[in-house]
């Protein structure tokens, strides 16, 4: 009996949304931020009153602001990277779930 083969692209297993992974990973960032907040609460209590001036005070205030800004920019970068990584993960997993396959069948009537 003759055999025939056809090739198709088939969804092997159903797709799933993995966006929740962003939340999972961002929780870690929030935890790190909480440590930073605790750190800056300690630092910000040291100089009494916002209006105090002086070479040393100004230098420390400047250093603190620069440090906070740098930390914030790292967190912003990490958050954006998480978003990109999870979006890409979603797409790539969806891709591997679709594969090209060749199906060979036998026609019993011929």
């Amino acid at each position: 009996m003759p055999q025939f083969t056809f090739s198709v692209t088939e969804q092997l297993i159903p797709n799933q949304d993995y966006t929740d992974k962003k939340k999972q990973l961002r929780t870690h960032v929030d935890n790190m931020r909480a440590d930073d907040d605790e750190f800056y609460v300690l630092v910000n209590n040291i100089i009494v009153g916002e209006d105090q001036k002086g070479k040393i005070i100004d230098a420390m205030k400047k250093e603190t602001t620069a440090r906070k800004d740098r930390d914030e920019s790292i967190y912003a970068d990490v958050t954006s990277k998480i978003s990109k990584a999870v979006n890409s993960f979603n797409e790539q997993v969806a891709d591997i779930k679709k594969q090209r396959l060749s199906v060979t069948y036998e026609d019993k009537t011929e």
Partner: protein
Amino acid sequence: MGNKIIITPSLQARLLDLEYHNLDSTKFVEQFKQIYLEETGQLLEGEIQSYNSNKSTYSAISESGYNGTAVYIDTGDSQELFIVSQGSQDTVDWLYNIKAMFAGRSISQALATDKFVDEAKKKFEVSEDVEVTGFSHSLAHNNNTVALLNYDTFDQVYSINGAQTNYYQQYFADRNFQLEVRKNFSISSSKELYEIPPQDLHDFAMEFYGDKAKNIHQTISKDDPLYAVSVVRGFFTLGSITMVDTNPDVPGLRELIADIPDDVIKDFQELAIDFAVASNEGGTNEGVKELIGIDVGAFKDKEGMELAGHIIANYDTMVRALNEKLPPLLDRVQTVTANSNEIFGSLEEAGYITERQKEVTIDHLTRIEKSLIDIEDILKDNVNLRDKLNNPFLGAGNEIVTILRLASNLVEIYMSYKEIEKTGILKRLESIKDSHGLQEMLSSMSDGLKSYIGADMIYTSTKGEPIKVNISAALQMYQKAIPILEAKSTKISNFEKAIKHELDESYKGEKRKVQDEINQMESSPSSYRFLLSKHGFYPTFNKEIKSIRVHEIFYPLEDNDFAEQLEELKKSVESGKLYIEKYRQAIEDLFEEEENVSQLFDLSRRI
């Protein structure tokens, strides 16, 4: 045993302030060490344990309302037991104040203090020769001195703004004192006690307890309302006293209180005694019943129809009891309202309140007085009518009119209270309360370099413009910032693991699932007949799938490289450590003439 631990007035004040934070044992000891370092420049080394009265198994302690912490310090060379006790915090304490210090009829908190010290000694296995020092604020001073005078609970008592010892209270607590008072003043019953001229009794008590007073040390603000009150009958001030003017803007209230005639105070004292005696016998509800004639406890747990039923069944009794008990109570209140000109005039003169606040308050207190007299008259009319008709129920009409008239007067009183409140007088009088607090006392303990904000120690740099630095916060930062950064490091590692888990391992898992499906398809192709119809190979009944070959392609996962971000996060932790050292250096530069600042930073990490 020598007292090797340094006790300064500011250390006392901060220790007492710490007690009000209700910290757990570990935190309390940690904070105590921190305060000790800041105040003395020395590390408190050795074994330090603490035990809070809320952990006590004795119901007599919790029921009395006593709150305190025992701290046992064993430096190796010496051992000491500190008992740090709180002042009035809640209703239980305030009811105790009335019963103990005004009426002189209770010492339950002093007994609880003694019991707690005993419990702490057993817990820490303290030998009898270890010195026990009591630190007290407010009510706790009364507790500690009563415990010292009656049970020798303490070797030393140090107090700030304490509620003084009371000779009426001691009369009922100390049998020897009672016998000597009876002998000296020729009295045969306790009723006569209150008739003895207060000054004579005061002087007698001072002499009687003179020896033990050597172990009592007090710091008192001239502006503390308790200092003002200690001039009235009952109180006697024992021990070495350091007076401090914590609010130089006002003269304090002592002269104002001293001007109140003793018979007025005695009137109030009688009310307090009635309340105390009744509540000692039958609990607080019984005490309130003694004052207003109504058993408020009977209303408890009743609501809706049951409550209404209770009121109707007891209505006649309640109205008659109120009519009998309210007039003497209102008479006392009227003593204040009738003298409001003098009282509020003096407060204005002393700078505590403004002229407008005085005027509005006097005006509305006059209105309140009128409403109180009305209430008295309404009750009297109602009871007279009952007697006349000889019927416990006057009929709905009459009762409703009575209730509406009473309600209207109560609304008037409430409105007047709101008007008084609107002037801001209550807020203004807060300054009096502040003068009783520990923080105002701490503020007065400032010198050129050192001062306090709240309970934090502040150093002021005099290099150029004065700069205030919170040394307590700086040391805390230096001490705690490293553990915080270490915690952040751990969180960075956790994040790194989470990336691997959520992305790399998860991708592998998905790949495995796909591979499993491929294996299944290739090994059992006949199970996938639906592919024929799905892709249009009809009819399908005459076809059989012989094989499936999957041409799988798995690309490696992309965009999962966080190396750069992780590197930045780790760098931030490292630079944090440098930043802390820089900050320390900056503060040391501000106070370069103060040699101990550098030492404080070093020692703070050994706490």
